[in-house]
Each structure stands twice: as C-alpha cells, then as structure tokens.
C-alpha cells in the first residue's frame, strides 16, 4: 500500500498541472464553491453533528434538497477521492478489510474512507457516520455502511426496462409516461414513499411538495443550459472548452442540482462557452481530430484528455456526462412531482449502456459531434455493444483498459502509447478514407 505522503506529493504535482491547463473562469468559481460547501459541511455536519445522508447518483436527490438534508453522492465522492490521487490507497484498504478485488470500487471508496481510522490524510478530513443511506439495491457497499453506522438504508429497485426504445432521448422530455411505462414509474414512486418517510424523520419535518416541484423545475432549467452548451460544442467550428473541464463542471453542478447556486453556475457556464465560441477561443487552435469519450468518467486523471492536442491536434469533444444532463434529466409536465422524479430516475444512467439504447445514442452523439474516433472505458456493462455499434457505424473505438477511479490501474506511459497508436493506426487512416469519399 502506498503511503499517504506519496499520494500527497502526487496530488500537489497533479494540482499544478491542472492549474496550468485550466481555461475556464467557471472552473475557478466551481472550485471556490466546492471548497466553501465542504467547509460548511465540515462545520455543520462533521463538527456540528447535523445529520447527513450518503446516497447513490441515481436516487432522487431533489427530495433531500427539499427537506434541507445535506448529502454526499457515493460515486462522485469516489470520483473526488480519485481526483485527489488517493483511490489506489483506498482500493488497497478495502482489500485489507477483506473486500475482494473483483468488487466494484466505483461507489465503494466512500465506504473505505468511512472505515479508515488510521490515515491522517483523509480527503476533507474523512467522513462521519451518516444518518440515512439510499442507493440502488445492488450497491452492497451501502448495506455495509448502514451496518456500521446504524443508519437506515432505503434500497431502490429499478424495474427492468421490459420494452426498450432505442431512440429514447426523443421521448424523454414530454412523452415519459409512454417511454418509461406507467407501471415502472408507479413501482419507483411507491419506493420513494419509503425514502420520504425516512428522510422526514431525519429532517424532523414534512416534505413540502410545492417546494419539491420548484426544485424539479429548477433542475429542468439547469439542464436546459447544459443542452445549450452541448449544442454549441456540436456546432462550433472547433472545441471551445476542454473535456476534463466540461466534465468537472457538469458533475460539480449536478451534485448540487436543484439549488439556486447550481442554476446560476450552469448559466454562467453556458455564457462562458458561448462567449468563447463567439470569439473563436478554441481549446486547441490546431484542432485536427475530434474524439468522443464513452463510459464512466476517467476521474482519476481528467487532464489526460489534453495530452494529444500538441502532437496530433486531437481533442476530446464529448462525454456521457454533459449529454445525459440534457437528454436524461429533463421532465416536463410533471403535475405529480413524485411521478416526474420517478420517470427521471427509472432508467437513469442505464439508458447510456443498455444494449440498443446506449448504441443508438452513441451513434447519434458521434454524428452530431462530428467525431473521428472514440475512447471507451470499461466498467459499465453494455459498453462493448456500444463500441461494436460505433465501429459498425464507421467510428473506430479504443477499448481503454483502466478503472475509472482505481489509481492502481493507471500507467501513464502505457496509456499514452495506447492512445497514440490508436490515433495513428486507426483514427487517421479512417479519417483520411472518409475525406476521400467526401
């Protein structure tokens, strides 16, 4: 197990590099807000003992927001641990606790930090025991957290998508009762009542449904800004913002979705991207190759996406994160806020990789973003089908053999060589061929 001090050194180095690559003003305001938010969390929750929740990414945060319960999202927290270059340490720590290596670390680094009583260098000083847990029923690490903390665990069982619609994004905003199936929405809405009952106990007050409706609508409005940003990236002659910054910004805002800050930050983000595109401020002025990124975020090294600008003029223009914000979250016409929420989450995330749904969406995204190739990270089941569909549509794809958050799987030189070979041997020839036909 690498010593935390090594991690601290690597972190400092990564931080310096990251600063030098930062192009967006909103990246600075996001970081400042995150620092302030964590400081508030530390003060109110970690020191003040205010109850908080640990939740999955695919549960209705809006309900907690409406009840003023602070919460941490397990997978994004894992992402932050990875971004702090401590994922290798915490992955090994889980091994040491007896959790074998084949168990997913994607959400479980939250548990690792909670269990770790020795490391003095925990991310943001570590995590106290939560008062409530709510994740997918398949996230067993949440059950472990519930057992050690004594906090109630509300599992969410997503109903199977028995009638898959490949072009789901065309129906998701207004036609969601048809798309998702009323019986599936009912199933989730019934489970949300369990969550509401448990959350009301923690909050010591009743859920205000009018406030919940406002929050849902504010999320819609925030995602509309993301939609505008995606359209700018799709249609601008060159890429106006680096993918790592875009991904960090999107996830930073999504964590706080429904709040006034998130809405305002999304607007500022849209304004800055528009300004850059209008004034031809490109991430890489020598842009030659446009790549898409498929799968879970490479949270342990977002700056990796900039490595190929100088040598190849290669930029990464697209990830799932911005696009799902636009296509997956927006639900209009939600008179019943619980049903609208249930529809928002009933297939959330899975539509990006369920065979058929994930492939149709990736092909559409490749077309609208004018991409020449794709880099795909394993971790989500169904990704191979997406890759195969892209290949059959003429988009070469590199299967990138790395864990999204586990730093132990990262080998900088090897990864750089893999992508370079891929660009030279697959993307450039494929692009040249297309140019001839054009």
């Amino acid at each position, binding site marked *: 197990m690498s010593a935390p001090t090594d991690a601290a050194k690597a972190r400092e180095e990564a931080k310096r590099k990251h600063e030098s690559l930062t192009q967006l003003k909103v990246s600075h305001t996001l970081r400042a807000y995150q620092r302030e938010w964590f400081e508030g969390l530390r003060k109110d929750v970690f020191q003040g003992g205010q109850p908080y929740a640990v939740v999955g990414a695919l549960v209705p945060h809006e309900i907690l927001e409406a009840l003023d319960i602070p919460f941490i999202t397990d997978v994004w927290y894992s992402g932050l641990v990875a971004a702090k270059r401590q994922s290798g340490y915490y992955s090994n720590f889980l091994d040491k*606790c*007896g*959790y*074998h290596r*084949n*168990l*997913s670390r994607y959400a479980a680094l939250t548990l690792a930090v909670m269990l770790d009583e020795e490391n003095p260098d925990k991310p943001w000083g570590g995590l106290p025991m939560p008062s409530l847990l709510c994740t997918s*029923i*398949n996230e*067993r*690490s949440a*059950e*472990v957290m519930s*057992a050690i903390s004594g906090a109630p*665990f509300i*599992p969410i*069982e997503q*109903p*199977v*998508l*028995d009638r*898959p619609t*490949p072009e789901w994004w065309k129906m998701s905003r207004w036609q969601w009762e048809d798309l998702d199936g009323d*019986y599936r929405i*009912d*199933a989730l809405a*019934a*489970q949300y*009542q*369990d969550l509401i009952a448990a959350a009301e106990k923690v909050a010591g007050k009743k859920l205000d449904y009018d406030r919940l409706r406002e929050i849902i609508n504010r999320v819609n409005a925030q995602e509309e800004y993301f939609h505008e940003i995606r359209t700018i990236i799709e249609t601008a002659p060159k890429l106006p913002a680096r993918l790592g910054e875009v991904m960090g910004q999107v996830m930073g805002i999504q964590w706080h979705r429904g709040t006034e800050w998130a809405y305002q930050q999304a607007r500022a983000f849209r304004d800055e991207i528009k300004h850059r595109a209008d004034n031809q401020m490109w991430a890489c002025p020598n842009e030659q190759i446009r790549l898409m990124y498929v799968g879970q975020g490479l949270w342990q090294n977002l700056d990796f996406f900039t490595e190929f600008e100088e040598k190849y003029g290669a930029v990464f223009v697209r990830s799932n994160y911005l696009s799902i914000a636009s296509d997956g979250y927006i639900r209009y016409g939600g008179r019943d806020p619980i049903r609208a929420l249930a529809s928002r989450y009933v297939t959330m995330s899975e539509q990006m990789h*369920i*065979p*058929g749904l994930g*492939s149709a969406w990736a092909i559409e995204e490749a077309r609208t973003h004018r991409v020449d190739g794709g880099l795909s990270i*394993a*971790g*989500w*089941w*169904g*990704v*191979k*089908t997406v890759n*195969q569909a892209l290949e059959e549509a003429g988009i070469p794809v590199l299967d990138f053999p790395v864990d999204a958050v586990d730093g132990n799987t990262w080998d900088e030189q090897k990864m750089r060589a893999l992508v370079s070979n891929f660009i030279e041997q697959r993307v450039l020839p494929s692009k040249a061929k297309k140019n001839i036909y054009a």
Partner: protein
Amino acid sequence: MQKPQRGAAFQTLAHHYAHRQEAARAAHAAGRKVIGRIGHTVPTELIMAAGAVPILITADLDRKTPVADIYVDPELPPETRTLFEAGVDGDFEFLDLLVLSRPYDKLYYFLKEIYRLGRAPKMPPFAIYDLMQSQREAVRVYNEDRIRDLVKRIGRIAAKVDDAALVAAIETTNSTRALQRRLGNLRATGTVGGVEAMQAIGAGYFMDPQSYAQALASFISEAAAGPALSARHNVLLITAEPLGHTNVHQLIEAAGANVVAEDDTWGARAAGDDISTKLDPLQAILDKYWSDVPTTGVWPPAARETWMMEQAARSDIDAIVMYIPPSDRMLGWDTPRLAKTFRDMGKPVQLLFHDALRDKGRSAIASELEPFFAGIPGRKEAAR
C-alpha cells in the same frame, strides 16, 4: 468418499441432470408446449397449470462464445455469455416461450438487442418476469401486476390458466417439496452424499414433474434403507453464484468432507416451505417465490441470511465453506462480516476465491481444502 451402489431410480435422476434438455425436447417432439425459464424465480406452477412443460434453461459453461465475446462485457458472469451464445446459435428454438427472471435482466437486454438487429433469428418469443425480492410492501403492487401479466402471457402460448389448474399444480409441486425435504434429512443423517443430492435435486428442473416425483421417491426409499456413508466432516456451503454443477461438492468430497447443505436453489434450498393452500392460489405462488427463493436480490440481509444462520448453528455442521469465484460482485460485500459471525459461532471457515469451473481453479481449491479439513479435529478421529 465411500459411496454405496445406487439403483435405477438414481440413474434416471443422474441421467436427466446430465442430459438437461432431453425430456423437454422429447415433449416438444410429441407436440407438447414447452416453456423455458431462466432463473429459479419463474414459477413452474403457472406453466404446469397452462398444460405446458416447464424446463429450466441452464448454461453450458464450457461452451465457446465467439459472438458473446464481441457483445457481452467481460465483467458479466460467464453464465450470461454462454446463455447469450446459446440464444444466438438457436438452441432455444424448440421452446414455445422463454421467460427470464429478474437476476438475468442483463441477459434479457443483450438478447433483445441481438434479436432486434436480426442476428438471432431462431430465438423463440421471450419475456422478462421482473419479481422484485426486497421484502417490503412498496414493491407488492408491482409484483402482483407482474405475475398477472405472466399468467396472461403463458395463457396466450398454452392453455388459459384458471384457479383449479393452479391448485392442482401447487399440489404436485408441494408433494415434490416434501420429498426434497426428506432427502435433506437423509443428507443430515449421512446416507446421501452432497454430489448425489445435487444430482437428485437438480434433475427436477429438467424432468416431467410426475416422473421426477416417482424417481425421487424411489431413490429416497432405497437410500433410507441403505448404509450410512463413512464419517466425514459435515460442511455447510455458501455460494456466490448458483451451482448448476457439482464441481465444488466433488472437491470437498475429495478433500475428505461432505456437503450436507448449501444455500442454493440447486441444492438444499430447492424445496423451502410449501406453497400455502389457504390463500388465493396465484397470491400463494407469488408469496412463495417472492420470499422463499434465495437470490442475490433478497433484501434486507436478515431475510437473505436467516436460513444460512440456522444451518450454521446446527451442531452437526463441522465447517463452513464460502465459494466466491471471480465473477462475484455481491457476496464479497457480506463475506468479512459473515466469516466473522461463523467463526464467532465456533465454526471453522474456508473462503474459496478460485473458479471451480476451470482446471487451474480446481487445483487451487483442492490445495486449499486439504489442509483446511486436516486442521479440523472431530469426525475423522471419531470414526477411527
């Protein structure tokens, strides 16, 4: 392990355990409707009540999977890959309907897509039966609707299902459950070995229900009158994945012990409790499969673990073996806690992380089991 010679009844059971589609294909050839089920939570009673022949569809894990290698992600269980390949190859063509259960939702999605692409034209009609297994009222309405939908779907393929037919089917399967529980008692008394028991129980998933009940009853009578096996350590086996094979049992027997119970529908948990005859028959069937069929989807942990804790506490259980092959994504989260609980109960525990389906894995398991059992005092010494 010294094994007694078994008669024709056991040979019949062992034959159908090995030749899993033989009876169903014969029924299809004879003009009967055959409905396949993938996973143990699809109720056979509904299929029987419709006058059709139920068959559990299982994976041939030695099968080559060239098409699955293109589409199916490596982190999914080998079972998903091989069943996908079988679907693409047309192995299920003889079925009139194939019903997948919730634990196989990913297989359902992959089959849906490959069929949509026109690359698996021999797939029969197929559907998912999405029984949620958390034990809470929030999922009741959804589960009730799903079983009603399944009854309609099966009724369209075979005969319309009515209450009288359901009651008759329940009577048949409850009789079989009683026999399987008697078999469990014989395992405890040492007259039936673990490998034999797995075959005798597993055959029931592939045979005509009446023929199976007859063969099982004959085997039980014969075994009950026969000698006990030589004294061995009695093992409770906890498994991360369904054991549609006897490899782990064989390795344990080769190491000088005997599995007397396993937390798996392929073995000791096949029977469970009877389906209630006091409730509306469809409701009773739903309740049985919702709360008394062990899968990884059962929640809360207490519901998942009650049976195994009761077994672990048995005074005749000498050791506990937990089989957690590389495909595990769930049991591993419970393993440290469960192992500690068992050890606190005074039971030695062996964790097996290798794959019993591969030669290399089997060698590794054998080399771990031998010293483990050698280090446990008790039954062997007593036998001497």
